[in-house]
């Protein structure tokens, strides 16, 4: 794996603390599925969470607590034996978190045209941020979109180039509103990306901004 563009510490820590909108969680989880460097960094932030849990006060559990818990595990164990969960769908392009949201592999994506051969599919997440899959034909430029707010773009297939550099599979571009960029898909093959933009208000942890999602949504 040769991922060169990674998540920021801020995003990793917020993901670890569980403070991000669902769409941002989705792109973070998808990148980590492709990037062991960030998986390890997340592990270190989770370890901070573990240390916080350790230093937490304690609040006594109620009297019947243990018995209820034991009842629950007995009831389950008599029903189903614990078996490892295996993902039924495998996809060369889409990591597991995306398969969950699409409900299948790449051929299950319901693309809609966004003009100039570009296609997109909005994924079902909470409204505080938007996740969309983008299909960009080889060599096509996404028109300059000086977006407001945060924009995260993760390459799943092919590659694109913009002012921020060259992004291949697994690379994520974290663009704040001051980056005015014009991504151009690499000429060698069509490019599929997951792009997440934060919507108005509610993006806890970052300065609320007015979203101006691109591609007319």
């Amino acid at each position, binding site marked *: 794996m040769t991922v060169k563009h990674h998540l920021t510490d801020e995003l990793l820590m917020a993901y670890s603390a569980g403070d991000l909108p669902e769409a941002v969680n989705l792109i973070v989880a998808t990148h980590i599925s492709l990037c062991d460097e960030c998986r390890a960094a997340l592990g270190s932030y989770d*370890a901070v969470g573990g240390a916080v849990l350790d230093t937490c006060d304690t609040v006594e*559990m109620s009297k019947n607590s243990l018995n209820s818990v*034991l009842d629950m595990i007995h009831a389950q164990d008599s029903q189903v034996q614990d078996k490892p969960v295996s993902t039924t769908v495998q996809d060369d392009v889409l990591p597991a978190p995306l398969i969950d949201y699409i409900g299948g592999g790449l051929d299950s994506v319901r693309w809609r045209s966004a003009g100039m051969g570009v296609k997109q599919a909005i994924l079902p997440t909470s409204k505080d941020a938007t996740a969309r899959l983008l299909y960009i034909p080889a060599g096509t430029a996404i028109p300059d979109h000086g977006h407001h707010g945060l924009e995260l773009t993760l390459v799943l297939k092919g590659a694109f180039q913009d002012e921020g550099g060259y992004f291949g599979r697994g690379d994520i571009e974290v663009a704040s509103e001051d980056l005015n960029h014009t991504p151009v898909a690499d000429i060698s093959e069509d490019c599929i990306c997951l792009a997440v933009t934060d919507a108005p208000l509610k993006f806890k942890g970052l300065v609320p901004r007015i979203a101006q999602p691109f591609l007319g949504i």
Partner: protein
Amino acid sequence: MFTTNVLSSVCPASPVANGVKMRDSCKEHANGTKTLTEGLRNTVVPWVDDLIAVRDDRDETAFIRVFGHFGPRVKAFLMRTGMDAALAEECAQEVLVTVWNKAHLYDASRASPSTWIFTIARNKKIDVLRKQRRPEPEDLPWGPEAEPDQAEVLGLQQESEQLGRALRDLPEKQRELIEKAYFGDLSHSEIADQTGLPLGTIKSRIRLALERLRHSMK
């Protein structure tokens, strides 16, 4: 890095804990005894052997100990994130049931018991308070062939302990800031880059564990 003399100072007091396979330099001290010992649990890696006993042997006595230690902490944690006592009690119970159900996913070379249980409690929090499921990274499955060796496990667990001490040693204000971030009442932007905690070493250890895992999956 981890040296043999650290290992040997640990191993004599800690014959094979339930389900933990000792290797290399540890093996000669193990004597094949399969007992839970206070040594490993209390001095070096608290709760690891109990969690592994739950994982490998479905050991209910070990689970009850895990429950006794972590239940009240998880409940307190959930109350700090904004749940009332009744809801936190209910959720803490469910977190512990998840510990039992997902024990097969616990990898002691990548997370301390507190860390692993924290992630379950956090997911429960998102589930309940935000009524959302949380997208998780693709699992890295691991079988017996990928079993971490004892040095890796001890290294990670010691690193986790050190991180805990570092957190307790931080100036109070800074520590509160980090705690608040994890309870969910503070923005992360101003502290993520400067937690004041030594995260580099623990990250490298987890990275090594992942490399081993990737290698064994090939």
